[in-house]
């Protein structure tokens, strides 16, 4: 933990996104926490692993599902100073995806490296 300039501690928050964007509400409600949490000026990172990598894929069309396509919101994260997005390499590979299939710039990391990143966190919210 480091001290914030205005006093108070800054903790490292990692949001772990493990689920596909649609089919369950976890991904959408996780993003809602990230957006609200951004106002608390903590050190925020996002990780995408397993089916969670689908949350970031380009060309999502949810019209037939009658649910909101929230993938454009990931592009707005930069405005909230949320810029550390880690994507599990093995998860991309297993699903035939590459970095160019994703809607935002990310850092592709191995599952092993992701474990190290988790080790460095103060708070992990897993969705």
């Amino acid at each position, binding site marked *: 933990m480091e001290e914030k300039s205005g006093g108070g*501690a800054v903790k490292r928050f990692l949001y772990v996104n493990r689920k596909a964007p649609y089919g369950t509400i976890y991904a959408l409600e996780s993003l809602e926490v990230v957006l609200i949490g951004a106002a608390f000026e903590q050190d925020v990172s996002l990780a995408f692993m397993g089916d969670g990598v689908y949350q970031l894929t380009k060309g999502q069309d949810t019209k037939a599902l009658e649910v909101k396509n929230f993938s454009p919101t990931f592009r707005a994260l930069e405005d909230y100073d949320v810029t550390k997005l880690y994507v599990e390499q093995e998860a991309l590979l297993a699903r035939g995806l590459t970095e160019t299939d994703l809607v935002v710039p990310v850092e592709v990391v191995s599952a092993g490296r992701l474990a190290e990143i988790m080790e460095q966190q103060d*708070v992990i*919210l897993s969705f």
Partner: protein
Amino acid sequence: MKFGILVNEGPYTHEASDTAYQFVKAALAKGHEIYRVFFYHDGVNNGTRLSVPPQDDRNVVKRWSELAAEHKLDLVLCIAAAQRRGLMDKSEAKRHGKDADNLAPGFRISGLGQLIEAGIQSDRLVVFGD
């Protein structure tokens, strides 16, 4: 140690709420502090006082209410998740023009900021869910 608790699943369908309850009870028995229990996703359904389980089953909602009364626990339902799923206190029901409210004793409804704050204030935030 000071714990924050996040419950992401509803009662009965999933064991997350039971496990969280047992964890909280055990932590309190060992002299630890529970800063807050935050209910998110379907976890907000743990806060309906209209739940009536069969008599030979545990009463998940009532158990939380009783533990809250005994230990002055702060049980918080996420307002956005609660609104989606029809969990209301009196003032929320009035604000949305609904004819009923269903919040169980010991629970309150508030924003997601309460979850982030629990993460900041607690030594450990423990997540219960899938």
